[in-house]
């Protein structure tokens, strides 16, 4: 169980990356499947070649960021649709990742790298049999919280505001002097860097890297973001970031319990992830479900739910008369809202 929490916390790194592209930049970025494996492959082969684990982890993060850079360049410079640009990179990364895995000092071609006998960032935990304990949860949790804080800080800078504007209203962003090419590419790099970092840590946690590692990771990230944001809302950035981390842990723990059921095989996970995301997407469109979660969750307020544009009556406003007239007009037509 605590092992599942460990893994959920590690997946939160990826989910934070997905949050940046899908939610903030409004960019459906499927590069994730490729950049995750780029992270696991790079880190694994670096450690295999005797590079210190921390350096190898950073290398995995950079590998992910470079995948994001490719998607960004394809989209902004060559005007390829976000979805298509990221699928192209995802496909290309399969070959590149195989090449990365074949960079071992023995020159062998590989599609998987084992790390069980190597020193990793988790060696200390493994030797003391603390993997999947409160100690590992605390340590990994602390690391993830620091990364989440960095993400929130990033979005609260002047550049971060520009990124949010780019995602929210690209036309206005350009009119405000924001170079949207730059904000998009940098955000894609940060996002996929986080995904690469997640891959780097995952490879060391599970002790191997496999070429198929990344398949379906985008859905897991998306499920975490949808789940977390449904519970915590997106009223404040920090609350949304907490939601993403909690969502990832909840998702992983749910999978852990599902696997306890003998009927369910390991290979069923992909279908379950897909079904879960479909359910989450359908439910998040339902007004009733939204209202229910809003009522149940103490972190969400009614004002979170987008309402019809309303004007707070201000008696000193030069528009006070208009507001009053408008209020009177809507009050006299109570059925209008229901039928529209």
């Amino acid at each position, binding site marked *: 169980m605590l092992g599942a929490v460990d893994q959920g916390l590690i997946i939160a790194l990826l989910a934070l990356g997905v949050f940046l592209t899908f939610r903030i930049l409004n960019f459906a970025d499927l590069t994730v499947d490729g950049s995750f494996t780029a992270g696991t492959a790079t880190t694994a082969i670096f450690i295999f070649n005797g590079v210190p684990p921390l350096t190898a982890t950073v290398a995995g993060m950079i590998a992910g960021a470079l995948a994001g850079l490719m998607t960004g360049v394809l989209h902004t410079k060559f005007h390829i649709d976000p979805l298509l640009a990221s699928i192209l990179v995802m496909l290309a990364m399969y070959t590149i990742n195989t090449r990365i895995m074949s960079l071992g000092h023995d020159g062998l071609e590989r599609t998987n790298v084992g790390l069980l006998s190597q020193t990793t960032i988790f060696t200390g935990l493994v030797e003391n049999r603390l993997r999947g304990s409160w100690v590992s949860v605390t340590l990994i949790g602390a690391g993830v919280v620091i990364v989440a804080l960095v993400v929130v800080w*990033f979005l*609260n*800078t*002047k*550049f*971060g*505001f*520009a990124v*949010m*504007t780019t995602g*929210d*209203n690209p*036309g*206005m*962003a*350009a*009119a*405000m*002097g*924001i*170079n*949207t090419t730059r904000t998009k590419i940098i955000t894609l790099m940060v996002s996929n860097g986080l995904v690469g970092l997640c891959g780097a840590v995952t490879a060391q946690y599970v002790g191997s890297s496999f070429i198929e590692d990344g398949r379906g990771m985008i859905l897991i990230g998306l499920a975490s973001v949808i789940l977390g944001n449904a519970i915590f809302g997106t009223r404040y950035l920090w609350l949304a970031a907490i939601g993403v981390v909690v969502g990832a842990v909840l998702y992983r723990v749910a999978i852990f319990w599902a696997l306890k059921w003998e009927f369910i095989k390991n290979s069923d996970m992909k279908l379950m992830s897909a079904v879960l995301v479909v359910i989450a997407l359908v439910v998040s469109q339902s007004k009733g479900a939204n209202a229910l979660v809003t009522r149940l969750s103490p972190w969400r307020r009614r*004002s979170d739910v*987008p*309402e019809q*544009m*309303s*004007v*707070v009556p*201000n008696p*000193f*406003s*030069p*528009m006070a*008369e*208009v507001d009053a007239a408008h209020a009177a007009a809507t009050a006299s037509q109570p059925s209008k809202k229901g039928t529209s």
Partner: protein
Amino acid sequence: MLTLTGVSKTFYPGTANERVALHDVDLELATGDFVTVIGSNGAGKSTLLNIIGGSLPVDQGTVLIGGKDVTRLPAHRRAARVARVFQDPQAGTAPHLTIEQNLAVALNRGRRLTLGRGLTRARRASFAEHLATLEQGLENRMNHRVGLLSGGQRQALSLLMATFTRPDLLLLDEHTAALDPERAELVLRLTAQMIDEHRLTALMVTHNMEHALRMGNRLIMMHEGQIVSSLTPEEKAQAEVSDLLDWFSQKKGGLSDRTLLT
């Protein structure tokens, strides 16, 4: 402040849908000029603003702002000098960002985007002062998302965001057209107030002849991609809506042979 020389723009050249939006347009605005632009649909008014703002490239001609040739610069590189308010209240603000975040983005218009904090206490205080001038009570709702505001409030906010950094040139593209008459009147009043206060050079496109006469010191009329008439401050002060209407039908008649030929 603004000099257009021989600006031409054709949409879909070489196809059946070819349409000349601007034909050899020259326009000169001195610092402090406030020019209103009228003309029928398809006269090229919006194209003119899009070309000055940089969201459309020119086919021919040059655009100078403050003496600097900006013809080849994209919109985001002109933004330090040019501010815009669009017709659609949704176009000028970011709905999921709060009022103060929107203002912070506007404050950074054309400046280098650093990793410094986007909002500080001092900046919030200054935003509150500016918002108070709108008399909408927005200064008490600064952490509300802009998507929750009404169209009129959004447009007032867009106007504030466009003017409080004192741009060299303000472009208003039918910015009251989507509002009901009362709110349009209010936004228009705020427009006059802000242009006056910050001594801005402005270009305002409108369909409302009465507004076109009341606002600004100069007036130009466009027809089929050309500036067909221009009123000096003295002429404008004397003109009335009926004069404009006469003038309008006259110009239209005068040019109709061209329409017949095409």
